[in-house]
């Protein structure tokens, strides 16, 4: 069995072995193998191509940008997504603008170990996909399965545009698959994770699994949820979402990030703008609470959407 985390390590191994332009740079990614061991043994396998950076997020991203201009394909690791704010300037003002301004693409991959885990607290739990999706020029990936963690990371390396790769820490160890795919759906294509008829749940990342669990619970009551896994939040696959809403007439967007200006808000804006007539009732969203992510597990498990919360929200959406 291969875990989500191992899939990320294997994707990097494959990228390093197949493309001499690829290198890995980040804090503790060298001999130590990364804070989560996502780069374990890679520095030994690929001498001189996997190395430690100083504790300098701004310099790490900035150096990746310069290396990309010179034709390399750097993969940089932020130890936690939360710390990418210290490299924010280089991501949003340099990497994201380079192609538009100069015509030179910026093929960097910034790996963000994202999202909450029990006990993570305010600074090791954040979901930053909406923040980066807000800026033009950044592809934002949010793999929710082992297969996508592997296949999408390889896609990310192959893309000429900068990619913010939001890998979910909650899925690192317990999400497992029998094998790894040769290919996955194209970048920017959402996946129908569950077919249904009564309502559409649009989600991504770790929330996919909460939504799937909620769907099982609702199924026992005779309601069949259709679930769309966005896979990439930018570009956003509006067509797949609209097609699902056309089948169900009801929409619930579930996202672990904060509500204001989030992915759920964007999906609802698209659906109401482009598919208002498809909706039987007002769309709903379920996000994390609008506070910093709390440390205590009892608080945290209520702060973020859970299967129970999703099932409750869906019942309201279905008026039951």
């Amino acid at each position, binding site marked *: 069995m291969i875990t989500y985390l191992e899939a990320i390590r294997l994707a990097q191994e494959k990228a390093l072995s197949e493309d001499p332009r690829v*290198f890995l740079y980040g804090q503790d990614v060298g001999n130590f193998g990364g804070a989560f061991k996502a780069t374990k043994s890679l520095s030994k396998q690929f001498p*001189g*191509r996997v190395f430690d*950076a*100083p504790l*300098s*997020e*701004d*310099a*790490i*991203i*900035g*150096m*990746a*940008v*310069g*290396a*990309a*201009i*010179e*034709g*390399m394909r*750097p993969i940089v690791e932020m130890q936690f997504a939360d710390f990418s704010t*210290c490299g924010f*300037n*280089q991501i949003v*003002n*340099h990497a*994201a*603008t*380079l*192609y*538009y*301004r*100069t*015509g*030179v*693409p910026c093929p960097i991959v910034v790996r963000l170990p994202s999202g909450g885990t029990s006990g993570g607290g305010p600074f090791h739990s954040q979901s930053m996909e909406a923040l980066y999706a807000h800026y*033009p*020029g950044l*592809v934002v990936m949010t793999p929710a399965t082992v297969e996508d963690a592997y296949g999408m990371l390889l896609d990310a390396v192959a*893309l*000429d*545009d900068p990619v913010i790769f939001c890998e979910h820490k909650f899925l690192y160890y317990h999400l497992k698959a029998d094998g790894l795919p040769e290919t996955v759906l194209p*970048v*920017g294509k959402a996946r129908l994770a569950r077919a249904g008829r009564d309502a559409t749940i649009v989600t991504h990342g770790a929330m996919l699994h909460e939504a799937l669990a909620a769907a099982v619970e609702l199924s026992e009551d005779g309601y069949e949820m259709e679930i769309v896994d966005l896979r990439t939040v*930018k*570009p*956003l696959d*509006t067509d797949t979402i609209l097609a699902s809403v056309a089948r169900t007439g009801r929409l619930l967007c579930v996202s672990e990030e904060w509500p204001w200006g989030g992915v759920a808000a964007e999906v609802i804006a*698209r659906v109401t*703008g*482009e598919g208002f007539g498809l909706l039987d009732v007002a769309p709903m969203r379920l996000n994390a609470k609008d506070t910093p992510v709390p440390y205590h597990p009892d608080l945290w498990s209520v702060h973020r959407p859970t299967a129970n919360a999703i099932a409750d929200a869906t019942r309201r959406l279905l008026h039951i």
Partner: protein
Amino acid sequence: MPTQKVDAPVTSSDFIKAYRVMLLARVLEEKLASLYRAGAIKGGVFLGRGQEALSVSVGFSLRKGDIFAPLIRDQAGRMAFGDTVLDTLRTYLGSQLGPMRGRDGNIHRGRPREGYYAMISHLGAMIPAVSGALLARRMKGESGIVGATCIGDGGTSTGAFHEGLNAAAVEKLPLVLVVANNQYAYSTPNSRQFACADLVDKAAGYGVAGHSVDGTDLEQCLATLRRAVRAARDGQGPQLVVGKLLRLVGHGEHDDASYVDPAMKASALGRDCLLLAEARIIAEKWSPADECAKWRQQAEEEVNATVDKVRREPAPDPEEDDWAAFSNQDFAEHYAGV
């Protein structure tokens, strides 16, 4: 002790060549100022008057294949590295034919494919970018490459300066970081910017070599940059060069710089490096005064002819722009309802 290499002395021919680039930059910037006052330039104009000697020495000391990420007051250095009057004017005047195609303006220009990086406004950001480029060159097996970038006294206070220089030092990259200490960051004097005695003192803290130079003296600037670039090229790691001078214009052309201390203007710092260089050429009899006047006239003719040409060029057409921030055209999204 490793044997010290002796750098080739600055010859009169080097001096004159660098002077003529400074002169062209000065003449071009004078024209930019008048175009700005006439309302012909949209956005700001940021000039390098008083900083040409230091700046030109950076560009002059680099060679083809090197990397250069200039900052806002580096017109002279840019031109010494290969930028042209044409590209400069196309960018300032918003010609569709320029390298930035109206998508970015004024000093935010470059040709990254040619090693000439286009700065972003956020100070210090180009330091790690050039460092990463040097890392890439090293990984590709290229040696003997130097990357240079410039910053001001204000920029040394940023986190990016610290992170970039430190990371470059750790990797022992061939980076030349040139600080033009022009005494003011916009209106903020050195006394409110840093508390060390001299910015070059910071070099020791990063474990890199430091060089101080009188930024008004072209010969000193050329010799110092030649030494620093050679040291970087020889594998001696990052070189921090600090030139002391005075910005002889406002922060931008909108700024009358009334905050500049008159005593500083009257001091040696306030001397005009271009006039000093010209006086030196005449005093040393490297060229007569009328020759210098002829060079200025030639520069003016080139600048004026290029302005006439660029002003007839098309502006970017909003209908024609693809409005694509992604290089992958499939990723373009269409937002309905607008």
